[in-house]
C-alpha cells in the first residue's frame, strides 16, 4: 500500500505540473540577460520561468474571492486594499453591469494580486522578468528598437478603456504570451524597487540618469518613452492602490513546476 501511495503521489505531482504547464495557461520563457531601460546601466540576468499566457480574468478572480472570503470587497482590510478595490463589482461575488467574465480583472491591489498567485502555487513576476518578456514582438525576443513595436505600445497608451476588452485581443508574442501590451498595466512583485528621479529628495542614490539622458536623446526615443511610462507608473503606485487599468498575471519558477 505504501508503494502504491508513493506511486500515486508521484503521479499526482506529475499530473499537477502537467495541469499547470499544459492547460494552455502558462508558457516557458527562456532566461537571459538584458539591459532594462531604467534602474541599471548593466545587464541583468533573468532565469527561466513560466508565465501565464493571459492576464488573470474577472471570472478567475471571482472564483478566487468565492473561496477566499477575506478578499471580497466588503471584507478586505483597508491595509491591503483602498476604496477602489473591485470598485465596479455589483457586490462581493458578482461582476458589475457590462463587465465581461473574460476581461482582465482590474481594481485589484498588489496584496490581492500577490495572494491570488500564491494560492495558485505561483508568484507575481519581478519588474525585470516582466520587462524581459514584454520586449518581445511576434517574431523577436527583443523588439525594442522596432518602430512598429513602439508605435503599437504608444498608440495603446492613447486609447481609453482598453481594460474592457477581453483577453487574447492583442498579439501573441515570441514566447507565446498575449496582452502584455494593449489591455491593462500589470502588477509586479517588486514594483516598489522603482526609484524615480523626481523623488530624489527621498532617495539616497536617486537615479537621475533618465532625466540627464533625456538631453542626449536619439533613435531610441520612442522605446525609452514607452518603457519610461511603465516605470513612472510603477514608481507612483502604492500596494493598496486599486486602479481601473491595472491588472496582473502570475509566473512560476521552472524548478517548482517540475518538482
Amino acid at each position, binding site marked *: 500500500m505504501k508503494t502504491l501511495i508513493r506511486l500515486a*503521489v508521484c503521479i499526482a505531482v506529475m499530473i499537477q505540473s502537467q495541469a499547470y504547464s499544459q492547460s494552455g495557461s502558462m508558457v516557458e520563457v527562456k532566461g537571459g540577460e538584458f539591459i532594462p531601460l531604467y534602474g541599471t546601466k548593466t545587464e541583468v540576468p533573468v532565469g527561466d520561468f513560466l508565465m501565464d499566457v493571459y492576464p488573470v480574468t474577472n471570472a478567475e478572480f471571482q472564483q478566487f474571492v468565492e473561496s477566499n472570503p477575506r478578499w471580497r470587497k466588503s471584507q478586505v482590510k483597508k491595509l491591503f486594499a483602498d476604496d477602489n478595490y473591485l470598485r465596479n463589482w455589483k457586490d462581493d461575488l458578482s461582476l458589475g453591469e457590462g463587465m465581461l467574465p473574460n476581461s482582465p480583472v482590474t481594481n485589484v491591489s498588489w*496584496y490581492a494580486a500577490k495572494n491570488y498567485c*500564491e494560492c495558485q502555487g505561483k508568484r507575481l513576476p519581478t519588474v525585470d522578468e516582466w520587462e524581459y518578456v514584454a520586449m518581445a514582438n511576434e517574431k523577436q525576443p527583443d523588439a525594442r528598437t522596432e518602430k512598429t513595436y513602439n508605435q503599437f505600445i504608444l498608440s495603446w497608451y492613447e486609447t481609453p478603456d482598453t481594460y474592457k476588452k477581453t483577453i487574447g485581443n492583442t498579439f501573441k508574442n515570441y514566447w507565446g504570451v498575449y496582452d502584455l501590451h494593449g489591455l491593462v498595466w500589470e502588477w509586479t512583485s517588486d514594483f516598489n524597487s522603482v526609484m524615480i528621479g523626481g523623488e530624489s529628495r527621498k532617495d539616497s542614490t536617486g537615479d537621475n540618469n533618465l532625466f540627464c539622458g533625456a538631453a542626449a536623446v536619439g533613435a531610441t526615443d520612442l522605446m525609452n518613452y514607452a518603457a519610461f511610462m511603465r516605470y513612472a507608473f510603477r514608481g507612483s503606485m502604492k500596494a493598496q492602490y486599486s486602479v481601473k487599468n491595472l491588472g496582473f498575471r502570475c509566473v512560476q519558477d521552472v524548478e517548482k513546476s517540475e518538482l
Partner: protein
Amino acid sequence: MTMKNLIYILLAAFLFTACNNAEKKETEVENDLAETKVSAENKELPELSIYNLPSTWTTQNGENIQLEDLRGNVLVMVMIYTSCKAACPRLVADMRNIEKQVPEGDLDNVKFIMVSIDPETDTPKRLKEFSIENDMEDDHWLFLRGTPEDTREFATVLAVSYKKISPIDFSHSNIISVFDEEGVLVHQQEGLGVDNTETIQAITTEVSN
C-alpha cells in the same frame, strides 16, 4: 478504494495546498487576534494596523517575533542595511537624534526599529554587531530581519522603495515612520537630516494617549 480515486484525492489535496496554507495563516492570525483582543481591552485590531501582516522576523538577539508581539508600543521604524556607507549612517543618526529627544520616562513605551532591506547579508549576528558598534543596545532598540519576500511586503506598507544596485549597495527611500500602539501609521518624515520636531511630537502624543 480504487487507484483512480486515490489519485483524485491526492491530486485535489495537492492543488489546494497553497491556498490552504494561506488560509491557515489567516486562521492563525485570527486566533492570535482573538487572544490579543482579550488582552488589549477587547479592542479589535484596526484595519490599517501593520499587525494584520502575519510575517515572522528575527531580532538582533536571534529571537523570532511576530510584528504583533510589539502591540502596545509606539513604534519608530526605518529600513536600512548595515553595509551601507552613504545614507544609512545619516538615517541611523536621525533615529538616534529622535531617540535622544524623547523624554526618558516615555522610552519604556517606544521601540526604535531598524528593518534590514538586505536580509542576505544582515544576519542576526551582523545586526547584533551593528547595534553594538552604534551603541544601540538598550531594550528600546530593535533590529529586524525577515525573508526577502516579507521585507518587500513590509516596505510596501511603509511606502519605502528599494533596489539592489550592486552586490553590496541598495538605493532606498529615507523614510522614518511612527506607528501608534495599535500599529497604525500616524506620521512619516522623509529625507535625511530633516527637522524632526513633528516626529518627536507625534511620538510623545501617542505615548501620552
